[in-house]
């Protein structure tokens, strides 16, 4: 029997970036198929192609053996494809049944919505899924797990035969995930073909029959789950050589300048303790949602923490007080450049001075001359490409925007620099520059804590790697011990 859905040699490029290269994948009725790979390996692009959002540049999509070309997400839906997103709700003010039948409400005479039929059929769907959920419940305030069930019920209501679950368990508790697995098995038993995406290897082993691994947009392997062991799977996901992207300089670590002890915020992170010394780059790795950024935000004082202490250069920082953190010599290049790092509408010079307005002032007045010269100095030192210092920061390219953020923080002359995803969304050239800068800063004695979802970046730049898993530090690896497999193993919570 032909597979329910098949990708054959599919390639897809976005501009100069090749997202997928010759990916083939077959989803069979009654089977749950795992799609594995690092962040950026191309999994989301596969999902979007199956869901009809993107068209392949090369290769073809086949439905029951027949080549098809989806005219868009709605077309794909009509042909029986449903995609369940990680955080799905669409209409929080409507109730469960209204969401399930959104756009396809059963009608009675006079084109009025037949509410009774709608509630009855929703209840039937939940019965099939074995989940007790009240169709009349408002969706606002429902857990993400319940919202996903609604999406699945919606898929069933459209008689979807191909169901894609895009990292559904990332935000679920273990109990909720178990319930989701039961539902997935029921769907498969009823003849649907499922594609399941997850970072958690143990889930793939317990749920899926087959796995396809992507790396850098290319298919690495496609095996039956029973034929591939844990180590081989991890290696096939990450096994790429560390490129010369990382101009790492050897440095001698000096005194301890950032000390974190027993940092705890219930439900977010627990008992996080570590130290960073002068001249050292410490990488903080882990999956999305493992609590890395949250720890950094709590250290800096943006978020609250329940207990634990943070000491910068001998000074104990008060809770929730970024100003005190800055005064003590801490700087933080945040994760979201546009919303947290910069004010896009303000000129470059005013962005640069924002974290140290006191320092460019005299007698309580901002000296714009001083402000300008500080901005000009950092623009020069970081090789910023710009028109004038009075241009809004939003007119710069991503890499140059990041340089403005770095300049803004380096101008505060920090002892400790926290960088959260320092190279996200910037081009290769700028990336290398940022890496070289971090290396130079460490060599000049700065302590750097680097959070990154990109394993090669962490491994290439860090002297030590801390790996977080579910809010705790799961492993601390020296530069010699740290390799992609070891980090991934700790990050996914599998035993070493």
């Amino acid at each position: 029997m032909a597979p329910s859905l098949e990708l054959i040699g599919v390639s897809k490029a976005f501009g100069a970036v090749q997202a997928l290269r010759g990916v083939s994948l077959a989803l069979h009725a009654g089977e749950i198929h795992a799609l594995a790979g690092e962040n950026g390996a191309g999994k989301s692009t596969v999902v979007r192609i199956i869901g009809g959002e993107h068209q392949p540049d090369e290769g073809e999509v086949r439905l029951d053996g027949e080549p098809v070309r989806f005219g868009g997400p709605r077309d794909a839906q009509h042909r029986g494809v449903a995609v369940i997103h990680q955080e799905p709700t669409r209409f929080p003010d409507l109730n469960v049944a209204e969401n399930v039948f959104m756009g396809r409400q059963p009608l009675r005479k006079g084109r009025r919505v037949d509410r009774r039929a709608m509630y009855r059929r929703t209840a039937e769907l939940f019965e099939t899924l074995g989940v007790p959920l009240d169709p009349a419940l408002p969706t606002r305030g429902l857990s993400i797990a319940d919202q996903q069930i609604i999406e699945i019920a919606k898929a069933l209501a459209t008689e979807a035969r191909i169901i894609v679950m895009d990292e559904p368990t990332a935000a679920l508790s273990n109990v909720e995930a178990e319930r989701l697995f039961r539902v997935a098995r029921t769907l498969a038993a009823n003849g649907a073909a499922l594609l399941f995406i997850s970072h958690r290897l143990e889930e793939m082993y317990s749920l899926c029959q087959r796995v396809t691994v992507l790396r850098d947009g290319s298919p690495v392997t496609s095996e039956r789950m029973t034929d591939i062991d844990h180590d081989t799977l991890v290696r096939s996901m990450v096994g790429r050589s560390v490129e010369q992207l990382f101009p790492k300089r050897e440095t001698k670590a000096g005194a301890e300048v950032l000390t974190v002890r027993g940092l705890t915020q219930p439900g977010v992170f627990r008992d996080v303790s570590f130290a960073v010394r002068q001249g050292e780059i410490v990488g903080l790795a882990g999956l999305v949602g493992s609590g890395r950024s949250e720890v950094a935000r709590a250290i800096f004082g943006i978020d609250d923490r329940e207990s634990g202490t943070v000491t910068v250069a001998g000074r104990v920082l008060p809770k929730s007080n970024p100003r005190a953190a800055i005064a003590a010599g801490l700087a933080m290049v945040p994760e979201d450049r546009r919303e947290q790092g910069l004010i896009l509408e303000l000129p470059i010079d005013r962005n640069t001075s924002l974290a140290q307005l006191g320092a460019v002032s005299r007698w309580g007045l901002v000296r714009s001359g001083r402000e300008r010269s500080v901005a000009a100095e950092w623009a020069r030192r970081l090789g910023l490409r710009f028109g004038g210092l009075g241009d809004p920061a939003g007119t710069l390219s991503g890499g140059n925007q990041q340089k403005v953020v770095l300049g803004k923080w380096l101008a505060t002359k920090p002892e400790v620099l926290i960088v959260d995803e320092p190279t996200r969304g910037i081009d290769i050239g700028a990336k290398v520059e940022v890496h070289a800068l971090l290396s130079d800063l460490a060599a000049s004695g700065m302590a750097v804590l680097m959070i990154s979802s990109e394993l090669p970046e962490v491994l290439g730049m860090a002297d030590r790697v801390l790996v977080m898993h579910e809010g705790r530090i799961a492993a601390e690896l020296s530069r010699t011990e740290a390799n992609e497999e070891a980090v991934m193993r700790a990050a996914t919570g599998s035993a070493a």
Partner: protein
Amino acid sequence: MRDRLLRWETILLVLCVLVLAYGAISTDGFAEADNISFLLLDYSEVALLAFALLPIVLTGEIDLSVASVLGFCSALTGALWNGGMPFETIVPLVLVAGVVLGFINAVLIVRFGLPSLAVTIGTLGLYRGLAYVVLGDGAVTGFPSTYRPLATASIGFLPYVTILVIVIGIIAMVVVHYTPVGRALYAIGLGEQTARFSGIRVDRIKMSLYLVSGGLAALASLVFTLRYNSARADNGNGLELAVVAAVLLGGVSIFGGRGTVFGVATAVLLMAGLRNVLFLGDVSNEIQNVITGLLLIVSVLVPASVRLLARRRRERPAAEPTLDEEEPCPTPTVSSQRS
């Protein structure tokens, strides 16, 4: 950005000069010292309240309760004067009362995180109601003649009150445009998260803006009470509309982050001049309101559409090369939230 704002303020200034010149040339009695004093006095409370509102709007918040704070403080002045308290004691008490009312706004908005629009619409009603509780329907008059001239007399055509307004305006200008706090106001309005990450004490700044607003409203209430020699619970009723109008007409963005003290001051002068010219020209009150209303709409419409046009022109060519920015295309080396 700065050029465009300057342009709006230039337009305002030109309009203002035109209105004043028209008044001087074609309206009898306009250019006389008495009338100029009257014109300036007439909008002095609006000016004080607008200077209080401007920094709040810059941070993206609003305070609609300013005129009700004025009303309450006026009523309190009357009640205390009726009770026989010396005026020298009343003044500091009333100023403190204004600050307290501002503090209540601040706590609700900043500590409890409630939307400032809803909170200050609520306190607009609440404070006005309390004013009636304090003083009832009546009016208190007979304030000491030692102090009344402070609110009514002039040096030549320049009333003392206008000197006070100018001093407050200069202080506002310095604080908003030349101090770290002023920079912080714009930063909060344009990107509150970034401001927090930059160590700007967003909550503390917002709190203090409402305290200042309450204090200035109390000051305006003293001016109002002495000027009319009448303390009433309905003093300044509806004045918040004129204040908001002046701030918006001054080119301040209701969404925060844009606007200048100069613009607001010019807008107040323009509104005062226009009303005076219409008044002298025997234009009815209704028509005056229609004209001010239209002016307000135009003032919001013009800068907004200019900005929209400018942005369209800027963004169209820039859209292409920033492909690497876009979250939804996963690249082999760039990690995005979902794989």
